[in-house]
């Protein structure tokens, strides 16, 4: 019997679990995937927004600004990459410069500090490759970039260290009320909990409707991206937004915390909540629109493209509240952008809401910090030497593009909520994230996973169920020469 069951292992569920793990609560987190961070949290822009965008007075605005303020300290405590690179919302000649003023004022109302509207010369000095048609920009010095994968993983690991039980491959199929508790049926068994927190992303409406009759309706809005080689990473240093439209914040161009260049997202409502495929039209739109922000977009240096789904709730704002007609069931629904930025504030807010219903006692011995997996790529030569002395596996380079060693991969597998799939390894230590996209290292990663997990290479998954990388041994089937 758990005090709290969190449904969904995205950045929201993991962060909520981490913030609740401060208290004397028995908590479990149920995730249908083979790893945490397999949903929207793995496919987004990774921007920690300043908070000028959301409507004044909305929950979105409040939690975005608060989350953005909490982020730097958290990134240091939990060791995930974060960089305050500043954002620019750009306005080209012929566009409505009044929009910048509106955004500026909204930002001031929302409590965003340091906002300024700047002109062409200043923009050019900040971004030499800016498109010549850009006349004005809103400068948001608090805008930042972060590693969404490691933020989610760090929250999960820290939560696990503080006692949260992670149950992967546990899709919630049904929830029933049994007197004062909930009985949650998952694909892998039954769980009982006094409180249920619904953080199921695009499926939050489905989970909600298992216990409540009040309307929550979530539509998936797809965003497609192109990611470029690190060689192109220096093209811009700030995050460059287009003027927002009714479709959203538009297609941005940004450096990533790891030094790549990224452009996207599009915004198209789709019916299929599994529809994370990219499209020819979408990728074209990304590249064409990015070229309106920056000159010299290196379309030949794309290393991969991907898509994520925003969970858009009909009302437009985040819904974070107990369901009106089902005791002790809390929704965290409609967490579209800026959900990543807001996540820490969501964690704090959920604890506050829960504290109004029950007596939350802080536990002694809460571990507040998490150390990063040592990274050979980021280490100095002296640090590398020390790491190799501590474990020679730090000299065995597995991923040559990102310089990731066997020791790092082993640690990613052995840590709490450890990696079980090739993509899970990739999210934690970046093996396969580089310019050859796993061409050289994925066979080695498969071998290491098989060895560590004590299974056959043919059982190793790329990501979800059914994503086996290998289809058998050589010559298992006859050779068909015709």
């Amino acid at each position, binding site marked *: 019997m758990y005090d709290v069951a969190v449904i969904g292992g995205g950045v929201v569920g993991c962060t909520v679990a981490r913030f609740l793990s401060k208290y004397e609560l028995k908590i479990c987190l149920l995730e249908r995937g083979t790893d945490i961070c397999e949903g929207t949290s793995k496919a987004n822009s990774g921007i920690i927004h300043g908070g000028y965008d959301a409507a004044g007075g909305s929950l979105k605005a409040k939690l975005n600004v608060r989350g953005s303020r909490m982020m730097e300290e958290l990134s240091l405590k939990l060791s995930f990459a974060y960089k305050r690179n500043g954002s620019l919302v750009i306005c080209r000649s012929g566009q409505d410069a009044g929009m910048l003023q509106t955004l500026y004022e909204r930002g001031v109302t929302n409590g965003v500090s340091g906002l300024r509207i700047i002109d062409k010369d200043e923009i050019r000095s900040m971004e030499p490759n800016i498109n010549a048609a850009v006349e004005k920009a809103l400068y948001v010095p608090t805008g930042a970039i972060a590693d969404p994968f490691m933020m989610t993983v760090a929250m999960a690991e820290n939560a696990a260290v503080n006692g949260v039980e992670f149950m992967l491959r546990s899709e919630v199929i049904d929830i029933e009320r049994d007197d004062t508790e909930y009985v949650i049926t998952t694909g892998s068994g039954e769980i009982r909990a006094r409180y249920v927190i619904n953080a199921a992303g695009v499926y939050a409406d489905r989970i909600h409707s298992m216990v409540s009759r009040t309307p929550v309706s979530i539509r998936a809005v797809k965003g497609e991206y192109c990611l470029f080689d690190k060689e192109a990473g220096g093209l811009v240093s700030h995050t460059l937004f287009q003027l927002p439209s009714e479709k959203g914040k538009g297609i941005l161009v940004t450096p990533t915390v790891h030094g790549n260049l990224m452009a996207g997202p599009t915004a198209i409502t789709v019916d299929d909540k599994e529809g994370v495929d990219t499209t*020819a039209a979408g990728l074209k739109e990304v590249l064409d629109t990015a070229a309106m922000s920056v000159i010299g977009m290196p379309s030949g240096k794309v290393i991969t493209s991907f898509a994520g789904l925003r969970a858009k709730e009909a009302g437009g704002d985040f819904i974070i509240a107990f369901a009106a007609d089902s005791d002790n069931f809390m929704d965290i629904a409609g967490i579209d952008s800026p959900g990543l930025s807001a996540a820490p504030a969501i964690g704090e807010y959920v604890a506050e809401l829960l504290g109004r219903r029950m007596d939350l006692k802080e536990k002694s011995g809460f571990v507040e910090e998490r150390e990063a997996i040592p990274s050979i790529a980021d280490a100095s030569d002296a640090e590398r030497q020390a790491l190799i002395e501590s474990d020679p596996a730090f000299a065995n380079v597995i991923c040559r593009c990102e310089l990731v060693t066997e020791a790092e991969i082993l640690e990613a597998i052995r840590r709490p909520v450890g990696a079980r799939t090739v993509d899970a390894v990739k999210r934690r230590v970046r093996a396969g994230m580089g310019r050859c*996209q796993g061409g050289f290292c994925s066979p080695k990663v498969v071998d290491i996973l098989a060895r560590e997990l004590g299974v056959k290479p043919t059982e190793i998954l*790329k990501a979800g169920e059914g994503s086996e990388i290998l289809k058998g041994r050589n010559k298992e089937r006859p050779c068909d020469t015709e």
Partner: protein
Amino acid sequence: MNACDIVIIGGGPAGLAAAESAFKAGVTDIMILERDSRLGGILNQCIHNGFGLHTFREELTGPEYASRYERKIRELGIPYSTETMVTDLGTDESGDKLITCMNRQRGMYRIKARALILAMGCRERPRGAVNTPGYRGAGVFSAGTAQLYVNIHGYMPGKTVVIVGSGDIGLIMARRMTLEGAKVRMVVEIMDHSGGLKRNIIQCLNDFGIPLKLSHTVTEIRGKDRVEGVVVASVDERRRPIPGTEEYVECDTVLYSVGLIPENELTRKLGAGIDDKTGGPVVKADLELSIPGVFACGNVLHVHDIVDHVSEESAHAGENAAAYIRDGRVPEGAGGYVDSEEKNVYRPGENEDRLTCIMCPNGCELTAVKDDDGKVKVSGNRCPKGVRYATEELTAPRRIVTTTVKLEGGGIEALPVKTDRTIPKDKISDVIKELTGVSVTVPVSTGDVIIHDIAGTGADIIAGTDITADTDID
């Protein structure tokens, strides 16, 4: 800090040929640094035959070609260090080169060298480079990754395959996947001709009835967790898909063979310029970069289709580096750059009756036609072997079969093997059938007979490489 005359980065065919020739030119204080656990570079996984016609005047497999050079290196006693990754390069005030390396035994260490030869090879362009839309499930590989899985690990990355790109690696993999039990549905090529050798079109596709779809591309990959199929469409003269021509092809695997890129991250750390066209460092005709005493050769310089050219170019790099050590500079007029020569690529309707003779290194371009009563007329041959070759190819073609058998007891699970002589083409499937289920236990040496007189062809199946219990592939 260790010091030596010449450091060579990369122990593939380029690095090994450079080392040999520098040594023979009188510089013996050499160090080869290789990050893999064995020398040979990418050739270790290219188990098919067709290497070495120019260099050794016979047709070898990749591992056989590599082992000839390894043997020379060992005989000459040239030092090398495997499982050693070069992580940084620089120069000091005196113009010496500083090479930062990393390995298990020594951790991080530096070598100071008077001359440096870059021989780091190349890597493949992935799916992202052509930006195919669709899902990103399992089952999408670059052809070289599939080659590694099948030829070295002994595992099949798929059972029903579509190959994107008809360069030589794509063609070779079409045959390899087929021989190991996969169904290759088609090879899709966006250009109106194949960039691969005509010989590979014949021996890798036509022999197995695999269709080549010229002027086509894959416009979408379907299947969220694992590939379920692809959409294939014709393209117009500007290589844009033509609406209405889409066709859905079921498959569980897509292999990309869409080009190679020289691997020059280290070169950039030296501050050297990169040539936009080749992707390799800017060099003079003598292979020297703008930094005196730094040379580049092989696939790190520009992509070579034929390994023999890599060896030839690299031997010049070795000589020129030796001259630099001896005289402080490369002699005026020294050359070495080996251009990628025009090769006999496949264009439909063009040169259909042309054959490249493979009986000797002359590689004559033959014209051969079979008349109505089955007689073959040959021209273009410089020796009588050409007539024999063309007649046989047109009437009763024969092939060397290269494949793998299961290997037990080693770190490597597949042993490359081949027939020791050609067999009739229509016996290929019998040979493969007889090899199914065969397993061999380590140690094995190159040339060991695995099966005598396979499928009654008179040919023996022999081992294609040396493997002991502790041969490691990492």
